[in-house]
């Protein structure tokens, strides 16, 4: 099916360059005019609350509710941070929004900043997005020049500055409190919560952190209203459009903006053009590396927060990775475990020690040195990590092993018993990629 594009409308318009002029031509920056005129900040918060917009960064927390947690004392400095750290394996939607339609994000940020009373906002962009950073710098300069940013924006009483802050290579800085630490010039180590950033955030001040896609939704909600927004997607709990990044063994990998709630089957087979070489699907990760693997029996599940949770995974970042029948599940899990072991910040003991422990065991199994009792030990280690760490990274890193063990335990056993892979390993592609 074809759907009306919202976030992708501009960038799929032929000739659209993402410049300020193009954005304005498409009706851009009308939302802030409208908001400044029609809504007091608290009304804007209320509007977003009523829209039911949920975070697109991973946890799916309702945006308006998060904003509402900020203390009401107007004397307090507040900050807005845009999470553009996009590092979740399988996810590349924010990058496209940044590179191709930066003003949509900036307008969204202005709306959010206005709503929460932040005079300063930061975009934390991962260091690898060198091009994206250039695009954003240029767009910010344009917006400043045009009076959308700076002192008394659009001649209102509101001051808003947006600064770009580039990371330097650390997945964990996508975790919101690690992101704050990183902006403060420190190692990106997550903080213990509570206190939450809404109370004690950047520089100890009330702070809101939102994902690029979440923020990019705001101009449309303001322009088209709550009713429109709650009528699309999978209301009441998962309204709106969602960009899914589809990758792996599909014919047309890429970003697809679709209403929340379409089935995985439709997403993979219709949008992404089906599986490479017409093979059978073996596994799907529905929401980035932190989400549990699903089997092809889940293909008819609806892609919304609740439905995916019901089948034991999560919608997460919207990164959908498809694996065909010839994929070795042990090496797929190992691949992601290596990712996590490389990216753990190392702050808390279960995650720091556990991740490499798991990697070592998985490597042994993959290389034919496994023991049957390893499998229970893997589960035990995972359970000793899950729920006991500073941040959600700990829960994320155990998802690949636990879910592959759950669905494909026999593959693990085969590795251990036969000291080789059950499936014809696509030319050895998935064999462990060594230490790096």
């Amino acid at each position, binding site marked *: 099916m074809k759907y009306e594009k919202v976030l992708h409308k501009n960038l799929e318009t032929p000739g659209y360059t993402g410049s300020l002029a193009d954005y304005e031509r498409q009706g851009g920056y009308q939302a802030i005019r409208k908001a400044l005129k029609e809504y007091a900040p608290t009304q804007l918060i209320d509007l977003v609350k009523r829209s039911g917009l949920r975070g697109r960064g991973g946890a799916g927390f309702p945006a308006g509710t998060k904003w509402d947690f900020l203390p009401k004392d107007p004397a307090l400095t507040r900050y807005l941070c845009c999470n553009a750290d996009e590092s979740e394996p399988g996810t590349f939607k924010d990058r496209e929004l940044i590179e191709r339609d930066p003003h949509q994000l900036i307008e969204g940020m202005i709306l959010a900043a206005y709503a929460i009373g932040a005079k300063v906002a930061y975009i934390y962009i991962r260091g690898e997005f060198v091009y994206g950073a250039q695009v954003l710098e240029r767009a910010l300069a344009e917006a400043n020049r045009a009076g959308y940013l700076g002192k008394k924006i659009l001649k209102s009483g509101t001051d808003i500055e947006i600064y770009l802050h580039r990371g330097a290579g650390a997945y964990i800085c996508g975790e919101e409190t690690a992101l704050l630490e990183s902006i403060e010039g420190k*190692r990106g180590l997550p903080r213990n919560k509570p206190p939450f950033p809404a109370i004690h955030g950047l520089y100890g001040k009330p702070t809101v952190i939102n994902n690029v896609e979440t923020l990019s939704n705001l101009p449309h909600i303001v322009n088209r209203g709550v009713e429109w927004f709650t009528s699309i997607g999978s209301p009441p709990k998962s309204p709106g459009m969602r960009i899914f990044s589809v990758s792996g063994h599909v014919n047309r990998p890429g970003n697809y903006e679709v209403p929340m709630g379409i089935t995985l089957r439709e997403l993979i087979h219709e949008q992404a053009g089906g599986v490479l070489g017409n093979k059978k699907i073996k596994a799907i990760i529905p929401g980035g590396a932190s989400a549990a693997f699903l089997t092809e029996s889940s293909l008819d599940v609806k892609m919304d927060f609740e439905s995916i949770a019901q089948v034991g995974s999560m919608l997460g970042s919207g990164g959908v990775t498809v694996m065909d029948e010839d994929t070795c599940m042990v090496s797929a899990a190992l691949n992601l475990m290596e990712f996590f*072991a490389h*990216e*753990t910040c190392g702050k*808390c003991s279960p995650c720091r*020690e556990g991740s490499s422990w798991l990697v070592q065991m998985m490597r042994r199994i993959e290389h034919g040195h496994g023991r049957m009792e390893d499998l229970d030990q893997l589960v035990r280690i995972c359970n000793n990590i899950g*729920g006991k760490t500073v941040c959600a990274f700990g829960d994320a890193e155990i998802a690949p092993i636990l879910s592959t063990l759950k669905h494909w335990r026999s593959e693990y056993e085969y590795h251990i018993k036969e000291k080789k892979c059950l499936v014809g390993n696509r030319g050895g592609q998935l064999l462990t990629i060594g230490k790096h």
Partner: protein
Amino acid sequence: MADTDTVKLKTETVKLTIDGREVEVPKGTLVIEAARKLGIEIPFFCYHQKLKSDGNCRMCLVAVEKMPKLQVSCSVPVSEGMVVHANTTVVQEARKGVLDFLLANHPLDCPICDEGGRCPLQDYSQKYTAYGQFKEEKRIYEKEFFSPLIEKEMNRCIQCMRCVRYCDEVIDSKALSSVNRGYHIEIGHYGEKQLECEFCGGCVQICPVGALLNRLPLYEYRPWMLTRTETTCAYCADGCSLRLESRPQTREVIEVTSFWGNETKTVWGKGRNEGDLCAKGYFGYQFVNSPNRLTKPLVRKDGRRDGPLVEASWEEALERVAEEFGRIKGLHGGEAFGALASARCTNENLYVFQKFIRLVLGSPNVDSSVRYGMVNAARALTELTGTPRWLPSYEDITQADLVFVIGTDITHSNPIVGLKVKAAAKKGAKLIVGSPLRPRISTLSHIVNLATRHLAHRPGAERIVVIGMVKAVLEQGKAAAGLAEHPSIARLRETVSKLSQKQIESATGLSYDAIRAAAEEWTAASRAVIVFGESIVRARDGYETVRILGDLALLTGKLTAEGCGLAPLYEENNEMGAYEMGVVPDRLPGLGRLDHEPDRERVQRAWKEPIPTGPGLTMIEMLAAAREGRIRALYLMGENPVGTLPASAGAAEALESAEFVVSQDLFLTETGEKADVVLPAASFAEQNGTFTNQEGRVQPVRKAIEPIHGTRPDWEILSQIAVEMGHPLEYQDGAEVSHEIARLWPACRPGGPGWREIPGRSEPAVAAERYRAERLTEGISERYRIDSGEKVPASSNGRFHLAMGPLLFHSGKMSLQADGLMKIQNRPFLYMAPEDAERFGVGEGQSVRLRSARGPGSVEVAVKIDAKYPPGMVFFPESFNEPPVKDLLTVELDKASHVPVFKTAEVVIEKIT
């Protein structure tokens, strides 16, 4: 008004339940602390009361009802009605799981680990039966040479980051880093370098496992083999509590610890130092077992003055002393004796010393190292407030809303009070620092860096800065309520109004606006303390400058108000004690004045003997008298004037002129070398007694080991000589001395009454009022003068302001005998600004020639570049006599206090070609 205040002060409390028991604790208390209050032990590694919670080890997990996951009790504050389960099976299993992770990569090398036996990782592993499930390859860190004093064994590290956090948050040294990410994290400094830092030892002490260790006693012991003695540090007057860990059998002090309850490291912060130490405290105690310790008395061969010093028996030496003393007393009377003591001795030894001099020798001429400057402050403070003791406490500094630090490089001179100032600054107090030093970045903390207002005055201009502040306060019409109308204050206003802003600006090098702004902040503060040190106390016009500081405080109602007042810093541990024990010619034990009949009477009654009338001679007068033959015998207990005073003071000549000199010391000093009899004394580690810190707290000194073979405690030596001389001054032990002192003066008892309870002393506020009415205008024009032309030499003509002073790693000459401190720094440098070094074309470690601008003589000295010194100023650490920089200095006597002023000089620096 008063009512609302008390309401505000009453802390809100919260009730919660832990393991079924209810407890009420102040709001904000952490769950782990609330549990401790109930006696419920929650295991932990990364938590520490001194540090911000980090919650990284995850050992302290508990279940909290209504919270989704297990929570780290070290980071979760209590809330009303909270229900905590600290010991369910789930919780226990979770902790066991955490231990499994921590043990995974731990080398389990407990048999060769110095921490073994006092290691929580050991204890908890046993308690939670975590026996290690890990069967993979362990992470191995290469062994590194971290520093000569600190061993780094990263394989044992549990990455709790307490060391790094302590270095950042408490010490402000920021010398440690956590290097790398994730699995590969380790503790480091930067780059490939060895650790350079303040060497406070805090990281070693705070490390829960054996990852950071003190190298000095490495592999020497198991913790349970050591005997632990709680005592008081013998270096500076901050008065830190520490523990000597010793092996009594061999009379060895093995190491120092301070954090109480080291075994599980669960209880923190005993003592005025709250567990913190500096390099001297932590690494400075090998002097006790130094091979250079004197262990046999020395006497001149055949009693000839020009004969060499040879070893003698105690009997022989004591007999000799008694005989000579007796002879001289018989021929020339008590006045022929001069006596100097070191303020590093215990109160008991000092007490017996002055009593011996006054009664047995019959001499009024007794003085001590407090004469180097402490008396300036003691005198002024006594006049201002009726007591030489501080009115503010260390806690008042921490809780102040403004601290004014002037005349001290506090990290170096008094590191622990420095920590209190840092703590205040971090809590948001204003910090005005008057100092010629510049801010600079290094891994030694620097108080100027934390200043919220830095008055970067010319070296030596402290007095004028304070005068400027007094003037500004009065101009702003901001004298405290009711004071402005007093005639004495009017006189003061009139006096300072005659001083022009220009004069002040040119003398201080500061803009008057800056001074005025500082004065405004000072006036506006409500809890404010002035912390000042050697550059006032030991400097020219020291006594007057302290009085001016007193005027400033008085004027603004902050001299005696709660939480306010003056806080002079002293270098030697027991300067306050020496003063209070009457080891100065004009004071008796208990601070009575020698020239005050009732005071004399009281002491005479206790001693049952008359005390020679004074006034006796002060140190410099004594030395002069010896040179002139009026004094014929000198008794030096721990005091080393030859090694301390510049050659021009003529101490050596004085000793040579005297007929008989006794030096009683731990070491053979420059002074000892000129003595006729040298008596080996026991150190503070070898006897019981008390020290009184600068604040005025009397603290216990406890015997850790028997006196090193051949040495004796000072009091014992003194009483033996007395007995020999037929004038019994007998004590069975040190405790007996302590009792006598306490009877005479209850304020000198550990935990005894402070100034408030001192009998016969008036309340400070009453004393201050009397001072204002009667003494404030005394000498006012002299005190508030600005000498024209009192300018500091500009470096452009090769002239420099040389300052001599303490260094963090050294104090006096004692530290030069401490192996650990010598490992940090074993030679002196002339510290200078990079700009100056560049001008002379000298690099680090290269030498320049230093010449006095006034007198003869020159020395060559190696340079260290340090950007904190402003161009035109150089610094030399006073502990080092080689090269003899001190001998370039001249001595000036403070007219009021007889303090020999010699710590600064105008010098010329030349390139060596």
